[in-house]
């Protein structure tokens, strides 16, 4: 493939992504000028680059799409679903042809035929009559809104802002099937509601019960788009105003404004670097960290030789090199950091499509997308998140009718949120759906033979929920094509653990379910404890070790075939690292044992070693080549003296 084409494909993918985001944002907020401009620019740029090649069908489609967006910009075409749906179809089509183009360099016949129907759809939009102004015009903060805010009893601010609603139902609205109070009941996060007769009724005899003579005013929690969705069909009867928190000025804010703007700025100075080059930098830096440790023994040698001045000099440069190497290591690790947005943004379209297919109304809320983590982690995050998101949409979220029946807003909320917590990252997938029933989970687990009913009886509700992570567990009665692909939550948990993370679940029946993934931000330096067995040395990740313990040989108690000891009134099984690694058994004549207490298999296990040498900060590299997949070994690392240390995977060794 020639370079021009390769460049085109990279660029096209980005433009497709950008325009998808813009169009989805416009769908939520048709008045968003910035998004409209951005969508227009993307399509325009794409059309420009397509012009370099001989893709006539593609060019025609883009040309028409650009015309429509230009029309939307100058107000001659309405920004509504009639416009956005065909445009999204175009983008979808382009998304599907980039890969084939990259491979074959041309469009297939089938794709050209598909272009025909897209052109028809676009032409239909172009021919549609022009109607009104944008659905919801932005307003400056009017008097009624500030008065309403002043009367609100609970003026606590909300992270997503507060929205004032003035709803004057049409007098004949009952005949259209409208029920204004029922509509109001659908507003999520309602904080304040007032209602009154619009006009005084002169005499009760004149009262017509079928004419609506009301004004409803309310304040609800933002974002604005969420409220707009409720009143989507009544734009002429409703005024929405975002309440300013401090100054009484209307602020029509865009939640994406901040991080989005920042990333555009950064794009200007971005440089594309092959990931492999950065990886090799990380590797070299990691080795430097280990190599600099070699200077310490040199200083010792010099001192032993009686040259104290030389020893001091070596030590001085050692600490200087250490500082620089650490800075270098930090910088190259930083180069691998990308925002989780790269993974999160793939969900917008997915949720929209899946929700439509399931016939459910789901609002995807994304927060903290600017949180950064190692590229590998952000990429590997997609699979588990995909499964959790599908799971939530499929099993968690009810249909609009079911939701209404239990007085929930019909629009379900699916939250995808990332947060940095120290050196770890928390990614949360939560829905406000039906939640999980611990009793049903327990019963299903018993029915599947995962545990006995006696065991189940003894479980708390919180423990019961954790059963969903057991292999072979699935509460779904029907295996759907969505999440029932034989991949259970246990697979998600394993995937997260492989990344060095943990998966947690909380759920309340009728309220919703939350999954929290706690992940490392980067595969950076890890702390190892170096232990000795006979003449061999091994590394054990410090995070696996709860504590170290000195155990008198007399305190070892035989239990069946094994051995155990009592630690703070708890019996802890005792294993010998030499047995686990099938090495020569240690001499049993020692008076006391050195024991590492490690977390494994959900409990604590004591691992006896001959000696605990020291700690090391190193970069553990996974095993490669022939050694790959060796049981119980996490990887290797270089020590300061140039020796290779095997790092043990305690969980695997013990289990």
């Amino acid at each position, binding site marked *: 493939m020639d370079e021009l084409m390769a460049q085109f494909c990279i660029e096209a993918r980005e433009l497709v992504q950008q325009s998808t985001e813009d169009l989805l944002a416009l769908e939520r907020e048709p008045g968003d000028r910035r998004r409209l401009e951005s969508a227009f620019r993307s399509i325009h740029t794409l059309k420009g680059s397509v012009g370099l090649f001989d893709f006539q069908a593609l060019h025609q489609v883009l040309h028409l799409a650009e015309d429509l967006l230009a029309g939307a910009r100058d107000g001659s075409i309405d920004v509504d679903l009639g416009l956005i749906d065909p445009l999204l179809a175009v983008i979808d089509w382009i998304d599907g042809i980039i890969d084939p183009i990259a491979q074959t360099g041309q469009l297939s016949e089938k794709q050209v035929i598909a272009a025909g129907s897209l052109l028809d759809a676009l032409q239909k939009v172009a021919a549609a009559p022009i109607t009104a102004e944008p659905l919801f015009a932005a307003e400056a903060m009017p008097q009624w809104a500030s008065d309403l805010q002043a009367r609100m009893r609970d003026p606590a601010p909300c992270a997503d802002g507060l929205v004032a609603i003035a709803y004057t*139902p049409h007098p004949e609205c*009952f005949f259209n099937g*409208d*029920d*204004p*109070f*029922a509509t*109001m*009941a659908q507003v999520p996060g*309602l904080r304040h*509601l*007032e*209602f*009154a*007769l619009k006009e005084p*009724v002169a005499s*009760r005899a004149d*009262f017509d*019960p*079928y004419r*609506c*003579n*009301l004004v409803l005013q309310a304040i609800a929690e933002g974002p604005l788009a969420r409220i707009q969705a409720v009143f989507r069909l009544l734009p002429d009867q409703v005024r929405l105003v975002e309440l300013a928190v401090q100054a009484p000025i209307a602020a029509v804010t865009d939640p994406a404004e901040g991080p989005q703007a920042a990333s555009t700025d950064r794009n200007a100075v971005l440089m594309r670097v092959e990931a492999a080059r950065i990886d090799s930098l990380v590797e070299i830096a990691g080795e430097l960290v280990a190599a600099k440790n070699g200077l310490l023994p040199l200083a010792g040698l010099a001192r032993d030789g009686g040259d104290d001045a030389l020893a001091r000099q070596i030590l001085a440069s050692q600490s200087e090199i250490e500082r620089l190497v650490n800075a270098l290591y930090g910088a190259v690790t930083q180069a691998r950091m990308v925002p989780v947005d790269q993974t999160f943004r793939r969900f917008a379209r997915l949720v929209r499509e899946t929700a439509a297919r399931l016939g459910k109304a789901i609002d995807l809320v994304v927060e903290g997308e600017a949180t950064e983590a190692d590229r590998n982690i952000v990429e590997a995050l997609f699979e588990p998140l995909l499964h959790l998101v599908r799971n939530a949409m499929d099993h968690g979220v009810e249909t609009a009718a079911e939701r209404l029946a239990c*007085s929930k807003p019909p629009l379900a909320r699916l939250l995808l949120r990332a947060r940095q917590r120290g050196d770890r990252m928390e990614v949360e997938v939560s829905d406000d759906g039906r939640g999980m029933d611990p009793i049903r989970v327990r019963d299903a687990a018993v029915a599947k033979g995962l545990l006995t009913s006696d065991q189940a009886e003894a479980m708390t509700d919180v423990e019961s929920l954790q059963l969903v992570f057991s292999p072979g567990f699935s509460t779904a009665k029907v295996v759907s094509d969505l999440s029932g692909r034989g991949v259970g939550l246990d697979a998600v948990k394993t995937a997260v653990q492989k990344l060095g993370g943990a998966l947690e679940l909380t759920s309340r029946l009728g309220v919703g379910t939350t999954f929290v993934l706690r992940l490392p931000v980067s595969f950076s330096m890890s702390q190892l404890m170096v232990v000795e067995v006979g003449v061999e040395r091994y590394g054990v990740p410090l995070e696996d070790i709860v504590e170290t313990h000195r155990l008198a040989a007399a305190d070892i108690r035989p239990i069946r075939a094994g051995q155990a000891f009592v630690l703070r009134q708890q019996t802890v099984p005792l294993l010998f690292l030499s047995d686990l690694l099938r090495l020569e058994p240690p001499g049993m004549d020692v008076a006391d044992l050195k024991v590492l207490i490690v977390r494994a298999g959900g409990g604590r296990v004591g691992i006896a070693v001959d000696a605990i040498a020291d700690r090391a900060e190193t970069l553990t590299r996974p095993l490669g080549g022939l050694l790959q997949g060796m049981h119980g070994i996490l990887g290797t690392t270089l020590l300061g003296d140039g020796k290779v240390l095997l790092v043990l995977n305690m969980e695997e060794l013990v289990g």
Partner: protein
Amino acid sequence: MSVIAETHAVVLTGDCGVDEAESFVTLLESRPDLPVDLTRAVSLHTALIQAIMLFQPTIVGAPGSDFLARWVAPSLNPRAS
């Protein structure tokens, strides 16, 4: 039928739709002495709420829907404590 005049009150039961509005208003006009009992009502159509606002009968109980009970019912019965 979910709007019935019993001896002690006009009782609304279940989901009360817009089609009940006329008979409800007739009852409110003819029996202004009777309170309106919402204890067994689940949801109320806006037309019925509007009628209550205009005729201001004494209200007994609160409807089953959380939304109505929290946001609407308290304002319908200013005389009750």
